[in-house]
């Protein structure tokens, strides 16, 4: 008797689970977020919007952007959640983003959302350029700890610094964009010319500088702050230095892909992505959030962190991108044979 009741119950739950699965819309979501962030975000979004199911495709910023743009004729992604705002602006320029102002998006910091109406993208959080500094190697080679970008010009660092090649890595471009924003373009080129003397390698991958610094291959790598957290947790003697003389940043942002076959569900996810609970979740990993008043729970950032961010016009930088990259290549790439 009991057995039969249990069976009936099991059958009932199974059918209701199936019914629920049938009514849920499966959204293909492209992202460049770190892998450990995917599961919590999926769980939170599906709990908040029970009608959707998230299927992630995750890859590095360059690869996922290239893929989305290559698929332009017949988009496969419904939503992009967690991709560099620069990438989204490039997609916007190709008319690939569906205009939609998510509920509550007006409350976001003006610099961290689309300036169009309706909006084409909304920001999630900012991550900043930083120096991944290997304290063990530094002690061994007697290198002082830098605290500003200007410090990196110290001749003692000759051949000790790695940074991503901006022509192959979005991270590399962002680092340069930060210098241009903080110092003005003419002085930024002057700075990079000086820095070039101390650079050992311009890597192709944006993650390589910090990874290599963590493995002690080089004393320091220029990268983004959040890259270093996983490395430190594994026991790398790594200090993450956010320079005090102005840092460039990139936004992680959300957008709906024009041509999605699930517009309604995609809009619900975009609504969730700017909501306070979602922002609190982003705050577990990032220091500065798009929604004012949400405190980050990441520790180790200076209190006046927000003031260090340079004022940069993301759209202007995106428009200048090609010219800046060409200029960079003619100055530094031509002589990039190893020394």
């Amino acid at each position, binding site marked *: 008797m009991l057995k039969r009741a249990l069976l009936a119950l099991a059958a009932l739950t199974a059918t209701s689970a199936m019914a629920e699965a049938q009514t849920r819309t499966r959204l293909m979501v492209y992202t460049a977020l*770190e892998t450990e962030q995917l599961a919590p975000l999926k769980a939170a979004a599906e709990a908040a919007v029970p009608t959707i199911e998230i299927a992630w495709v995750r890859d*590095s910023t360059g*690869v996922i952007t*290239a893929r989305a743009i290559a698929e332009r004729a017949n988009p496969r992604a419904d939503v992009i959640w967690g991709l560099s705002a620069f990438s989204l602006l490039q997609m916007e320029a190709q008319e690939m983003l569906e205009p939609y102002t998510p509920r509550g998006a007006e409350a976001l910091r003006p610099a961290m959302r689309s300036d169009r109406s309706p909006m084409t993208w909304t920001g999630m959080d900012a991550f900043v350029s930083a120096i991944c500094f290997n304290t063990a190697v530094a002690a061994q080679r007697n290198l002082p700890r830098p605290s500003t970008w200007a410090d990196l010009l110290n001749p003692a660092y000759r051949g000790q610094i790695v940074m991503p090649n901006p022509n192959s890595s979005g991270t590399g471009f962002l680092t340069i964009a930060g210098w241009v924003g903080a110092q003005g373009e003419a002085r930024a080129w002057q700075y990079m010319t000086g820095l070039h003397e101390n650079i050992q390698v311009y890597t*192709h991958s944006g993650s390589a500088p910090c*990874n290599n610094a963590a493995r*002690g291959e080089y004393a320091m790598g220029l990268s983004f702050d959040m890259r270093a957290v996983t490395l430190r947790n594994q026991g790398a003697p790594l200090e993450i230095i956010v320079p005090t003389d102005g840092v460039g940043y990139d936004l992680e942002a959300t957008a709906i892909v024009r041509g999605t076959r699930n517009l309604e569900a995609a809009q619900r996810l975009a609504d969730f992505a700017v909501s306070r609970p979602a922002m609190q979740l982003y705050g577990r990993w990032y220091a500065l959030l798009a929604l004012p008043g949400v405190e980050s729970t990441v520790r180790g950032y200076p209190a006046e962190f927000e003031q260090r961010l340079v004022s940069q016009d993301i759209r202007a930088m995106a428009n200048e991108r090609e010219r800046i990259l060409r200029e960079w290549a003619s100055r530094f790439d031509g002589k990039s044979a*190893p020394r």
Partner: protein
Amino acid sequence: MSSGTLPASLIPAPPVVRPRLSRAAQIMRLGQWVALMTLAMALLLPMGVLLSRAFSNQAGQFVWLANFATYVTTPALFTAAWNSLWTSALTTALVIPLAFFYAFALTRSRIPAKGFFRAAMLIPVLAPSLLPALALITLFGNQGMLRGALFGQPLYGPVGVIMAQVFSCFPHAALILAVALGTSDGRLYEAAAALKAKPLRVFMTVTLPQARYGLVSAAIVVFTLVMTDFGIPKVIGGQFPVLATDVYKQVVGQLDFNMGAVVGIVLLLPAVAAFLIDRWAQRQREATMSGRAVSYQPKPNAARDGLCLLHCLVVAGVLLGLTGVAIWGSLITFWPYNLTLTTANYAFENFDPAGWGAVWNSVKLATLVAVIGAPAIFTIAWLLERGPQGGPIPGMLRLTAQLPLAIPGLVLGLAYILFFNHPANPLGYFYGGLVILVANCLVHFYTVGHLTAMTAIRQLDPEFESVGASLRVPVFVTFGRVTVPICLPAILDIAVYLFVNAMTTVSAVIFLYGPDTKLAAIAVVHMDEAGQGSAAAAMACTILAITAAVKLFHVAMGGVVNRATQAWRQR
């Protein structure tokens, strides 16, 4: 060979069966057509769509050669082209002798443990290319245990690139050369011995000429592989610029597909050159395995066997040693600061949401590629070699089969998106699923399988078919009863080759996997990018364990197959 003493002008052309009107020939011509159409669908059309981008601007307008003009003015172009050329040439020059003497030892000497050496030589293709890169960093990097061995040269640059390329190209050359040297006519050696020829003379006049087609193929394969590979220069090349990383720069760095297509075309030039050389080599060829041949049984020779054994031990030692370092790397907590051993790196779900699922996806994909690919590739090679030769079809088929080798994976992957994802393409249904991944892997790794099949088939005397025809046995029965069994070892080699490459490939499939079809080798790249080097090594070692198990099974099967199908060659 039987006509070796006659002046060339008196030798009739090899008696290839070309009964132009026979039903068999018609069916074979039809088969050639089907093969060409299929390859056109899976290779030529996607590449055509992509390459047309080289002649248009971002807005899609036709701009003639403007993109090429821009590319030629890129400051680093000539450095990159020169670097590509000399690293490819140097790697070829290093790999070919190493692989030739290794293959020679396996086939023409009496060294012990040939099965072991045969398996060991394949290790580099059994693992994703990040595995040797991680191992080389552990050994020769700035924190490396043996960094003094580079005499102050930095690993990140041409030194690292060439070391890693030699490692990863070795098996490709050794595989082709082992097949080329594997079937040889023992009577030639008996004749040479009867004429009291010195060993060196025998080597120069019998062994080398027999293997020359294999040597040409192997050299072409190695040169082109180095030319088009961007994975190794990206990871270990530092900023050493080569043409293949230019594709990466254009496509992934700058999202400029038009320029990426331009570089892709530049990289196709070696393939065209290879095709011309192949045609030349083919005109020089003679069947080395006539119907009266007996397989060569090397006699014991202490000096030769000793040298061969030494060579094999050194080469296999290096291959195994690097792998051992990588396995150790997968078991430590964090290189180089925490060398505590742990198995936590194998709990993949902590590092990548797909977890172990990625491994099963890869196994599924690789199995499909091998099971579909090996019979298809061999049959097409046979249709091409033994089918009717008139008309443009065979030439086009030959060129098509040669192309994939020269196409960088990244370019092929992009071509697949643009072609199969096009709204007007009815095949778009398969996009994002396993089918498209299978097709992509098959095409990507077509050439080496094709060359292996061709080498094996060309060593069979066309007399087999002639005799069959005169006995009124349909050519397909000869194919099923004679050609396939004789060539079964080569077919198995192709199947295993496809399996392991599908397990380890990254560059082409990185644009094509979907949420449910993430692959293990891609997870390796992602973990490495996330700074989880040990987990990346662990995933790479898992892939290696699977491919190695398949290879060992192949070796065990090989013994059975050999006894069943090759016994007739013994006296």
